[in-house]
């Protein structure tokens, strides 16, 4: 071996001889479409994610209309929806059908999680901000990064295309539970061109995109940190993205495996998830040999989907941490504790998945195990939230728009998190399972929680991306309107859920009216709140688009922040930095006693 080593080192001089050095100006397509630059890819992911959030929200608006006014035609757009989505989804009069409700429900969940929040929170913000914050010229694998976005793009096109195949898109929920999902959507007779099969194919592309992206994040953070940027000097956002990327790398593949299995169940007639003696249409299904297990799908699905919850929330906490430190003009309270908490959270999130499955009858011992781990995971979550809360203590807080969203995140996420604790206990869950209580719980985490944090992030980094600030006025209109409307939308769900309203009733509970009479009237209130919420998003859309052209121009560091992303020209050029970067201090050195200004950038020597 020694000869190998010496021979090899003898040739090290050739390392620097790169074969493709070209400095020519890139064309439009390479610059803005098939770009390998992390910032362009981040913007692509972010804008796609925002568009899908809006689309998923619109699907929900139609569902909410149906819940408040069962069987009534959707006002204004009913006819257009009928001609767009066809007769499976909408009646001729323009009302949502039962199948249509299932289609919209399944696609709302799928789109919001896999096509909206994750692309925006992880791929959008992560791509744009992480290399800047660690002082890197780009991601470690720029071409893979581009592949990631275009894989994702294919998955978007395929998933959207599924609305237009015979029988419309998937109807079996975003969880795609077999055996229902195994036998659904075969009415058209085509085993490939139908909603559920296309859902699976689109998910395979989506998972591939997320794998390419998350491997890239981890390698970038480990390999491309600027000199002096040791681990405990990383901004908390980078830590959050680091753990998130690990969750994606390790949790998504089992779902991919499960997706392959469900795909072969559907197209090759295997029985991975099809039990013996399955009765379909009043007779035993002969198309499957049987011997499979529907619970196996649930295990593999939730092995992904529980860590996925933390994939949704960790980047949001990261964003909030940046904004809180910046606007309280104080270091984060308990930065190290937060770093350790985010790691324990990441680890524990892999061993809590079966708390989604208490109703499967998997056994009291197994349920007890998952009940214990689920209660344990609330400890690091509380460490994170409490640290952020205490960080506010004694600060002279600047309540700009990002900070408004970030501070609202804290109690909203608190409500979402604390209402999850009863669900962790298997005895309570037996009652609350599949009610609106669950819907309210996770929507509080993800909507006024994560999505508020994402709005905060958009307002915060918008000046860095475009060189212009978003309007404070429209931002505040957007914030206060959304905060009130979103609570009007989700809070009554707790009341309905505790009264036993089931999440899958497509008529808003009219069929069971005598059972839920005291709470059914909330349907109208929630739908009105949803409409109000939609209205206030117009302020955001207007602000987002027009500020690109008329927003106030800003310099390198409009928020007077310390981290490296604010140490670049605005907007950052290809390669990001206009000076060699060396880091001399921690990420949040605000209001250091004796310092000339109230913030010390990480690159400042003394």
């Amino acid at each position, binding site marked *: 071996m020694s000869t190998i080593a010496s*021979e090899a080192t003898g040739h090290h001089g050739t*390392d620097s001889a790169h074969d493709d050095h070209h400095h020519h100006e890139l064309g439009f397509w390479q610059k803005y479409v098939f770009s390998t630059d992390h910032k362009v890819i981040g913007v692509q992911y972010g804008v796609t994610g925002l568009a899908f959030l809006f689309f998923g929200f619109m699907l929900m608006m139609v569902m909410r209309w149906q819940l408040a006014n069962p069987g009534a035609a959707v006002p204004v757009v009913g006819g257009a929806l009928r001609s767009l989505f066809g007769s499976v989804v909408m009646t001729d009069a323009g009302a949502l059908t039962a199948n249509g409700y299932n289609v919209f429900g399944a696609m709302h969940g799928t789109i919001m999680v896999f096509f909206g929040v994750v692309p925006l929170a992880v791929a959008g913000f992560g791509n744009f901000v992480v290399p800047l914050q660690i002082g890197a010229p780009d991601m470690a*694998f720029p071409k893979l990064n581009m592949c990631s976005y275009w894989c994702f793009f294919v998955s978007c096109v395929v998933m959207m295309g599924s609305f237009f195949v015979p029988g419309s898109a998937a109807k079996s929920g975003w969880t795609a539970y077999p055996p229902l999902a195994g036998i659904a959507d075969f009415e058209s007779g085509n085993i490939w061109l139908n909603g559920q099969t296309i859902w699976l194919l689109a998910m395979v592309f989506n998972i591939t995109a997320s794998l390419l992206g998350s491997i890239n994040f981890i390698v970038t953070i480990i*390999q491309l940190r600027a000199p002096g940027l040791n681990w405990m000097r990383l901004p908390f956002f980078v830590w959050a993205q680091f753990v998130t990327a690990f969750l994606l790398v390790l949790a*998504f593949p089992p779902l991919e495996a499960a997706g392959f299995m469900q795909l072969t169940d559907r197209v090759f007639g*295997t*029985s991975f998830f099809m039990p013996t003696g399955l009765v379909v249409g009043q007779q035993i299904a002969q198309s499957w040999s049987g*011997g499979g297990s529907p619970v196996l799908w649930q295990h593999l699905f939730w092995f992904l989907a529980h860590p996925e919850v933390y994939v949704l929330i960790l980047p949001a906490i990261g964003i909030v941490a940046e904004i809180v430190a910046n606007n309280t003009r104080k270091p984060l309270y308990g930065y190290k504790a937060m770093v350790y908490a985010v790691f324990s959270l990441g680890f524990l999130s892999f061993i809590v998945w079966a708390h989604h499955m208490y109703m499967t009858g998997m056994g009291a011992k197994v349920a007890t195990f998952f009940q214990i781990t689920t209660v344990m995971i609330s400890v690091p979550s509380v460490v994170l939230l409490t640290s952020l809360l205490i960080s506010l203590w004694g600060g002279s807080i600047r309540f700009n728009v990002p900070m408004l969203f970030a501070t609202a995140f804290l109690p909203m996420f608190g409500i979402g998190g604390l209402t999850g604790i009863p669900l962790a206990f298997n005895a309570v869950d037996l009652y609350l399972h599949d009610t609106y209580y669950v819907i309210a719980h996770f929507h509080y985490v993800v909507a006024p929680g994560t999505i508020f944090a994402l709005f905060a992030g958009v307002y915060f980094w918008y000046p860095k991306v475009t060189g212009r600030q978003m309007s404070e006025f429209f931002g505040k209109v957007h914030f206060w309107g959304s905060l009130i409307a979103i609570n009007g939308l989700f809070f009554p769900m707790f009341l309905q859920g505790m009264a036993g309203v089931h999440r899958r009733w497509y008529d808003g509970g009219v069929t069971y009216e005598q059972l839920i009479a005291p709470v059914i009237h909330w349907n109208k209130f929630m739908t009105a709140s949803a409409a109000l919420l939609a209205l206030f998003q117009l302020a955001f859309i207007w602000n987002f688009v027009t500020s690109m052209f008329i927003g106030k121009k800003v310099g390198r560091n409009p928020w007077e922040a310390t981290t490296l992303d604010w140490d670049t020209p605005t907007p950052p050029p290809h390669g*990001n930095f206009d000076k060699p970067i060396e880091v001399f201090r921690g990420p949040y050195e605000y209001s250091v006693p004796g310092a000339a200004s109230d913030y010390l950038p990480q690159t400042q020597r003394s």
Partner: protein
Amino acid sequence: MSKLLPFFTDKEVPYTVAARPDTGLYSAKLGIWLFLASEVMLFGGLFSAYIFLRLGAEPGYWPTGLLNVPVGTINTAVLIGSSVTVVFAWAALKMREFLKYKLYMAITILCGLFFLCVKLTYEWPAKFEHFGVFIKQSAAHKYVEFLGDNSKGDREPRWEISGHLMHAPKDSPYRQQAEHNASKHAGHGTEHGQAAHAGDDDYVIQVDAVNAKPDAEENGKPSFWPRPISEKSAVIHKEDVESASAFLPRHSTYFATYFLITGLHGLHVLGGILVFAYLWLPFKGGALLYKSNPEHLANRVEVAGLFWHFVDLVWIFVFPIFYLL
């Protein structure tokens, strides 16, 4: 627009070839290890499905001993051998011996191709030609001759009669396969009496050794050499059949997992071969890279080799769980 996003000057991303001093790794090596971690989870998901389904299978519904162990052994050896040669190829590059690199890489590619050929031209087709019928438990007493005495309880019960399909009921999708087998058999000059009697509602199967002597002791344990098919035939009435299928993924959860895992593994082998071919042929990022930056090519071979070792490792799990256990 270009004013809006003026993201372009040019700057190199570091550590594509040389290692970062404090981590000791060039980026691609870290990347491939992370990718392999995700692959472990992918195959882990599939293997846990195997365990879950096998443990959950009713007695007698998880077949064993259907695969050809000697052929599998040869394939295992070939794949392990190719993992050795790919290391030689990498070492040759490190020593800047280009011709040796070309030679060892060629051997690696050929080994991979051999493995795939055996899989696709022999092992899988041999399964497709085989046929199995699961007898309803309530009708098993009519087929004691082939299933043996399940009531004694000294072994796993047998519910399946397998072999070559000679005749299939009128509405069966396997009618063509049966006719094909019957005519081939007729060509051998042996008389197949029972197929002639069989009605439109019957399956006729020239049964495997295990069904010919179901209670014989040697059939109760695994054997290295495949047992030749018997000359005995079974006539099975359609009404007694729970499920009937060629040895396809739909046959049982056993074959479903077998084909899915070996299929996905085969795709990985194919992917590895394509990457190796790219590194072997005179592409700009392949063998031509030797002239400009041999260390970069060596790194690429190392990374592809790590992937190849993983593919090999997966097979080392696949082989025992499907062929031996």
